[in-house]
């Protein structure tokens, strides 16, 4: 019964094989946990750029700043041609990034750490702080009349997630409280969200910080019979569907694919041609809001892991 194969790719959204022959070796060192939805899209982006341009990509990541610094050191040791780094904790990476720059390796920072990028000697920064995306969510929710928000943190103490929640609160103008759930046990996360809504019926908005949590939050809101509106960071196929169905008000998309793809492309162009897009100014990849109007278009792409 091959009708079971509801997820089989029928058309390829990856955009051809590419024919680049740059042959550079580029290391990408991020702070995203292995298996994190957002960072897996970034990884897809850098790898696609690698195939398109004919570069060799070495992607590694660790949420612990010291380990991330050691991974950068390892890349520098290997004398890579370019380095892409996300800086959730810039201070911790300072020494390692500067060492790379000193070794003559061009560095581009992505996602977080925009403010310190220049100082450490990076060519440019792609993407924006979580703050910008968070503020966009807060503003939009305020526009929708939401006043009492619970922000669902799925990894306690994660710098990026905390920044997102704080930024939502900054522009919301209402009350915001955090709620902790376990991303690795979504079923119990759903119970926890439900418990929060049952316990505090004044809540009229829920913000989740990743696609998978958004889906269980939607189910939790429904089961608790709460009127709360749901917004989320980051996309995945189910989120796109949820937005289409009206279960999710909107999703904010930082276009992680682009952060990865562009970083590799710009490094390649720099090595080949000493080009720097924006002349060293920060290059923004978002935030783009995915709402009911445009959700249908990105659903397919999200399922393919590029949005």
């Amino acid at each position, binding site marked *: *019964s*091959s*009708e*079971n*194969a*509801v*997820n*089989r790719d029928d058309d390829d959204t990856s955009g051809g094989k590419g024919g680049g022959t740059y042959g550079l070796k580029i290391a990408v060192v991020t702070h995203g*946990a*292995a*298996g*994190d*939805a957002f960072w*897996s*899209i970034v990884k*897809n982006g850098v790898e696609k750029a690698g195939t398109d341009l004919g570069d060799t990509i070495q992607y590694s990541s660790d949420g612990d700043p010291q380990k991330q610094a050691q991974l950068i050191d390892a890349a520098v040791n290997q004398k890579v041609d370019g380095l892409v780094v996300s800086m959730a904790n810039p201070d911790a990476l300072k020494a390692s990034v500067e060492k790379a720059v000193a070794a003559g390796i061009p560095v581009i920072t992505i996602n977080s750490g925009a403010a310190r990028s220049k100082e450490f000697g990076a060519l440019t920064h792609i993407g924006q702080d979580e703050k910008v995306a968070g503020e966009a969510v807060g503003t939009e929710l305020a526009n929708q009349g939401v006043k009492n928000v619970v922000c669902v*943190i799925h990894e*306690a103490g994660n710098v990026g997630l905390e920044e997102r929640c704080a930024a939502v609160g900054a522009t919301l103008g209402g009350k915001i*409280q*955090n*709620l*902790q759930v*376990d*991303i*690795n*046990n*979504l*079923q*119990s996360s*759903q*119970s*926890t969200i*439900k*418990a*929060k809504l*049952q*316990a*505090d019926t004044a809540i009229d908005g829920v913000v989740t910080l990743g*696609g*998978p949590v958004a*889906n*269980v939050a939607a189910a939790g809101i429904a*089961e608790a019979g709460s009127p709360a509106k749901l917004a989320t960071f980051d996309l*995945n*196929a*189910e989120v796109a569907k949820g937005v289409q169905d009206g279960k999710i008000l909107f999703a904010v998309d930082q276009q992680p694919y682009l952060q990865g793809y562009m970083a590799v492309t710009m490094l390649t162009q720099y090595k080949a041609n000493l080009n720097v897009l924006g002349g060293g100014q920060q290059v923004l990849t978002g935030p783009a809001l995915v709402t009911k109007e445009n959700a249908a278009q990105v659903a397919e792409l*999200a*399922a*393919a*892991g*590029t949005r």
Partner: protein
Amino acid sequence: MTSAVATTGAGDERVARVGPLTRLLLKPELGALIGAVLVFAFFAVLSDVFRSASGVANWLDPASTLGIMAVAVALLMIGGHFDLSAGVQTGTAAITSGILTTYYGLNTWVALLLSLALCLAIGFVNGYLVVRTRLPSFIITLGTFLMLQGLNLGVTKLVTNTVQVNNFDQIQGYGVLKTIFASEITIAGAPFQIAIVWWVLATILGSWVLLRTRFGNWIFAVGGDLTAARNVGVPVQRTTIALFMTTSFAAWFVGTTQIVRLTSIQAQAGFGQELIYIVAAVIGGCLLTGGFGSAVGASIGALIFGMTSQGIVYAGWDADWFKFFLGAMLLLAVLANQYIRRFAEQSRR
């Protein structure tokens, strides 16, 4: 020699009398049960939603899947072993079923059987390596834990290009699966998950096996004194492997429940849960060194954990301090449990 045949049982002058209450208090599960009652009372006072039917249904839900795993893990722990790969195996089960159906179009039941076979095979390998190498199960299952974690992510990425498998609700036969694994039973107006029923059944089965079968006797023996067990002819290797496979079966069951409930599964699902299973078993009175414990106790441990983690939310405490409260509650529960047992032991003189 006047062979002093026993005046059977009753009325030995060397045996002091003991009240039935004290006797009850001495059972390990009962200490845990009192801990559970305390935790319940505590949160019930703080929040009336917590003690409402829908509140109870809500916190019984996470307790139920945790409880099913805790019972299997308790059996394994009584048998003297750990399974650090138990958590990720729930993910492996769900991911395998999901990919086989939604990507490779296999028949739903065939796919479920294949993922069950895979889990049992993993359990077998865990057990086989443990008995053959005589290395601690902690280190062996740590190896399989890491490998499965990598496999779950690597395979999911490879097949789906994302880190999750979706649309499980669109396969044929999903309705039946939903009835078995994820239907709801309405009691007092609140929807109770069917997993709660499975949990109760698992506890009864686990208890029965432990206390009423020869396999149960072997479990206690293997965990209590491996050399002695081997010397009296207990099939040590078979028992150990069977225990690991039981844990894997439970992981398959819970993993399937998850993908049916959520209709999708994350590559990292289940990661880190293995410790919570062990915690539930230990709160319920299982010895970490093996040879002692009970299935009922492990279930109550799961209940305490479920109530505490949801109760903190009902009580409306600051999320930043969530782990602090969780830790404090756990510590208080086990300390209370211990104190009650000591007290009972004192008073039985």
